[in-house]
């Protein structure tokens, strides 16, 4: 590759924009002052006494391309760069607020009074029938009813005791965790038994309103929260 020094002078910036055509693709046409470039090129040629018509022709060609790019941009209604904003005057530095400890007036009594009101609300909510039907109609998978009813008591008992084992922390169980690793059919059976358990009131079930994804099991009886 020839070194920069061996190239003609007009291959050096800023004139090279006019001679290295691939550069035209990378420029913002509004950034090129064509008149300045052409005048500089002429002056430099005169100074050096090197008149090169090929170079002049190429410069003219590139200039017209840049003009064309500018007019296309205008047709696209692209705004020419906005004139620089006048400097906004003095911009003060941020004022950091002095740090002061402040005793807040909220005490545990306030917290518990609020709790009393919330729990009252929660009880009222529990009395209302749930709007979202939680229990889908029993699927076809259930074996003949008579046989099933004979087994169901046992299954409920078994399930309830394994839920108790599972719930060593608090009363809340996530269904997906509970059935983790089970086969699909097995999980469905568990779910159905769970519905029966819910009907007896031993557990309650609910689902997130937003995306109906996770099902939660809450123990109604069983180990109290505080051990």
């Amino acid at each position, binding site marked *: 590759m020839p070194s920069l020094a061996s190239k003609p002078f007009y291959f050096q910036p800023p004139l090279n924009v006019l001679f290295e055509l691939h550069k035209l693709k990378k420029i913002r046409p509004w950034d090129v002052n064509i008149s300045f470039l052409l005048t500089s090129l002429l002056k430099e040629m005169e100074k050096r006494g090197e008149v090169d018509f090929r170079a002049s022709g190429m410069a003219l060609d590139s200039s017209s391309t840049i003009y064309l790019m500018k007019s296309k941009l205008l047709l696209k209604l692209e705004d020419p760069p906005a004139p620089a904003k006048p400097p906004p005057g003095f911009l003060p530095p941020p004022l950091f607020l002095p740090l002061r400890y402040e005793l807040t007036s*909220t005490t545990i009594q306030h917290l518990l009074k609020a709790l009393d009101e919330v729990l009252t609300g929660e009880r009222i909510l529990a009395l209302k029938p749930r709007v979202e039907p939680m229990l889908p109609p029993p699927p076809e998978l259930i074996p003949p009813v008579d046989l099933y009813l004979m087994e169901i008591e046992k299954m409920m008992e078994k399930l309830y005791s394994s839920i108790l084992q599972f719930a060593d922390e608090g009363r809340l169980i996530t269904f997906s965790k509970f059935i983790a690793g089970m086969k699909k059919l097995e999980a469905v059976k568990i779910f159905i038994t769970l519905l029966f358990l819910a009907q007896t009131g031993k557990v309650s079930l609910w689902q*997130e309103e937003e995306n109906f994804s996770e099902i939660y099991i809450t123990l109604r009886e069983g180990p109290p929260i505080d051990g």
Partner: protein
Amino acid sequence: MTDNEQESSELFEQKKTRRMLSLIEAALYVAGRPLDLKTLGSMINTRSKRKIRTLATTLMKEYEKRDTALEIIKVEDERFVLQLKSEYTPKVRRLAIKPLLSVGPLKTLSYIAYRQPVPQAQVIDVRGHHSYNHLKQLEGLGLIERERAGRTKIIRTTEFFADYFGLSHDLRGLKKQLKNIFEELIPSE
């Protein structure tokens, strides 16, 4: 080392210690809650527990000697707290005028504390849709933390919550305390 050099080096050490004591004091003052050795150490860029312990104890003794309204005491788990001596609280309590939280977020917080760990959906269910904002605020204040569990979030209160209300850091203990005070305060029908 000449006497002069010795002296200026000692002076330098003294100044450095003074600066570290001040940083610990600044941290304790601004936090207004017990801070552990690790947090205090991060203020003075050291991990040496021995060093932090010595500095915190020095500061504690300085406060003791000064005999003013404030004290630094060591609490559970080698944490230190700067606080008002309890004898002054009744006199100045009325100057505390700003609540930590307004009623709505406080209710949401109380519910979380009582039912924790509790799924976000349950909180929203009981406290209504506006409580999404409460949760944001409570999290911002460092009173609760939300943990992703599959597609939902499980909420619990933080150690800061326990410290603020003077409750146990242990979940079972905390709930028991809450229940006891609650029953004392609001006897069930």
